[in-house]
């Protein structure tokens, strides 16, 4: 028995801002090929409002996860916040979230950093902390208002959203962890130096040696470890930097397209970094049936990937209706102009 099997997802919740920006408008403003959005497989991206940041979005996702879990927040022993868009460089976002949901003062609370994979490593750490009995529940939040240099190709997809998971004992879970695996190497595919406002990236280097190598590495390790095969899974959710990479990595690993598309959210909201794969998992939990098995494989630049095998339990149906679902947030949308997006995301320099 793997330690993972003692643990599971007791509650989950997501958040997507109301505002959207059409990728066609980005192409028009910056003179890109008008077909670029189609090539990326993304039509719009979600844009956090002027009064939003990774913390406010994370709080709403965490509250949704708490509503689903139906637990006392004082029993949460760790609030672990994965982001690469912290409102403060020094001063934890996790303590603001912990205070807002009522988990203070005896909970651990820390911000995790590993590009888009910070929250995923926090999930593995939560499994360890819960399985060992150190804590009863862990709250993991993946939240980003992803930054991109205006006019950089990254700007097409860098978006805003959050997802939170409450990890606890298998007996209380809507879906339990079966096994997990990690694959990390030192790979310079994407980075942001201290005091730099926007990240830089290695263009085509972000594909083969980074995204594909690491996801294939973690998923193959998981399959070898467990003896499971792609046909044993009902859904596969990968990190989704655009609408095409997840389908390509699925093909490489032998997962058919129809197992990937239910959890593919990036075509509608862009790449929400730490929430990218997790919001796909949230959507799948909202449509999955008890007994179904989900592969989850987040990725973060720098680079690394984790693969999780997750089995849905009969508690999923009743939990689903306790809080807003991903589709509620997808439906609530209003398209803004590039100028308003630029103001909302601080792309316009203003002397304060």
């Amino acid at each position, binding site marked *: 028995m793997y330690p993972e099997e003692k643990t599971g997802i007791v509650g989950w919740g997501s958040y997507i*801002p*109301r505002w959207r920006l059409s990728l066609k408008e980005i192409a028009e403003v910056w003179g890109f090929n008008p077909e670029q959005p189609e090539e990326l497989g993304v039509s719009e991206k979600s844009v956090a*409002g*002027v*009064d*939003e*940041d990774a*913390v*406010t979005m994370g*709080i*709403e996702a965490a*509250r949704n996860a708490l509503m689903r879990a139906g637990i006392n927040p004082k029993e949460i022993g760790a609030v672990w916040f994965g982001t690469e868009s912290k*409102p*403060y460089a020094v001063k934890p976002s996790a303590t*603001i979230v912990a*205070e*807002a949901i*009522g988990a203070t003062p005896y909970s651990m609370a820390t911000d995790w950093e590993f590009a888009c994979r910070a929250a995923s490593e926090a999930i593995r750490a939560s499994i360890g902390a819960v399985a060992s009995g150190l804590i009863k529940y862990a709250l993991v939040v993946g939240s980003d208002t992803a930054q991109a240099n205006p006019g950089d190709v990254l700007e097409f997809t860098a978006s805003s959203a959050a997802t939170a998971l409450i990890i606890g004992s298998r007996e209380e879970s809507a879906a339990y962890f079966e096994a997990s695996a990690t694959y990390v190497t030192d790979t310079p595919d994407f980075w942001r130096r201290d005091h730099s406002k926007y990240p830089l990236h290695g263009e085509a280097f972000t594909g083969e040696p980074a995204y594909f190598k690491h996801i294939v590495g973690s998923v193959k390790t998981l399959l070898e470890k467990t003896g499971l095969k792609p046909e044993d899974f009902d859904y596969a959710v990968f990190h989704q930097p655009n609408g095409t990479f997840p389908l390509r990595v699925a093909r490489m690993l032998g997962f058919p397209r129809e197992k990937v598309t239910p959890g593919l959210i990036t075509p509608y909201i862009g790449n929400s970094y730490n929430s990218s794969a997790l919001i796909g998992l949230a959507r799948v939990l909202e449509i999955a049936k008890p007994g179904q098995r989900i592969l989850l494989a987040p990725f973060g630049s720098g680079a690394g990937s984790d693969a999780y095998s997750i089995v849905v339990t009969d508690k999923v149906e009743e939990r689903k209706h306790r809080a*807003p679902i991903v589709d*509620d*947030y997808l*439906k*609530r*949308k*209003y*398209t803004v102009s590039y100028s308003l997006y630029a*103001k909302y995301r601080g792309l316009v320099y*203003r002397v*304060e």
Partner: protein
Amino acid sequence: MRISIPPSWRTRVYRYRLVATKCKKCGVTLYPPSNICRHCGSREVDQVELANEKARLITWTVIYSTMEGFEKQRPLIIGIVETTESKARILAPLTDVLPGELKPGMIMEPVIRRIREEGEAGLVHYGVAFRPELTTSALNTS
């Protein structure tokens, strides 16, 4: 705009979790919380959390000339809502909504937002704002 640390810190729980006071004598719920009931003068009050309650929009104003520090939020919409169960009247910013979409009686829900910040390097002051309930069909979509 300078944010004074002690009051911002002291009131954080009231703002984040919408903690109000309910008078044991006359039953009136007040937000911000008060140790003395402003309705009947009683000092016997309980703290209650309103973060899970919906609210009805009573009235609002759209502010085009904001004070210093709120330029990015223009036009700033400030409303008065009444929570559906405890009937507390709350003055707060309205968010995720265009001025033309607001209607009296609209169902709103509390969310945590950045209320103000002290420039690029200073403190961020988080607090409660109200938005139209998530699943409403009253908002424009595009």
